[in-house]
């Protein structure tokens, strides 16, 4: 037996490491560290902000809360950081469980598009309320 752990099929295909796995691993964890602080703030702040006895009161409170620059910036950081972390995580789930080549590529592209779409919607919404 050779000193290689690679199968004959693996040698023929010539596929190895994609050489960018460590970057993905680190990005997932760096975003996780940021979210450890951002998400609890977001939960507490949001739940306090959206209190109110009726829909109109809750809407006014939420709008006032989001209009404050400090809240707007932290909301953008929390939401965009979460979507970044989400995209990396869903990418791994898709790569692990979807074995069909076409379906895998299609879902990876959809994951990217959906992530940027959510970021665009979040940034637009927060700026519209906060800058108005």
């Amino acid at each position, binding site marked *: *037996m050779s000193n290689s*752990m690679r*199968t*004959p*099929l693996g040698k023929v295909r010539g596929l190895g490491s994609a050489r960018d796995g460590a970057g993905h691993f680190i990005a997932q*964890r760096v975003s*996780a*560290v940021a*979210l*450890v602080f951002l*998400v*609890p703030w977001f*939960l*507490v702040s949001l*739940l*306090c902000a959206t*209190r109110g006895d009726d*829909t*109109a009161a*809750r*809407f006014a409170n*939420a*709008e006032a809360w*989001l209009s404050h620059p400090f809240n707007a910036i932290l*909301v953008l950081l929390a*939401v965009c950081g*979460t*979507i970044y972390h*989400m995209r990396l*995580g*869903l990418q791994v*789930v898709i790569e692990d469980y979807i074995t069909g080549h076409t379906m895998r590529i299609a879902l990876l592209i959809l994951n990217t598009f959906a992530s940027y779409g*959510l970021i665009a*919607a*979040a940034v*637009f*919404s*927060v700026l*519209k*309320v906060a800058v108005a």
Partner: protein
Amino acid sequence: MANQVEADKRPLSPHLQVWKFHPTMLTSIMQRITGVGNALGVAIVVGWLFAIASGGDIYRCYDVFFTSIFGKIILFGFTVSVMYHLAQGVRFLFWDMGKGFTPAVANFWSYFTIAFGVLGAVGVWFFAGLIPGVAV
């Protein structure tokens, strides 16, 4: 590959079916499930931001749905999912530093993260004044 003639000489990792259950296995699987669940939750949050930006009428639709019993069940499930994923994520960071792998320690923190997910969510809802009959 089905038509591969030569037998594979590489050592195989144990298949999921022959593994004895252990808590760290459960928490690892749950981390994936809650991660996918949280992705759906993020869409709800972004939708909520969009509803605020869209004005009172659109916000009313959102508000009516998420203050209904069905909406509240979704939001509470999302809160549990976020709190669990948060606690388990912090534990993964400790694992990345090589700490907490002793079976007794790993099992303890497995149950802790599950408890944190449920009790943490109850705590958040209590703090937010969302638990029926309990005013804060």
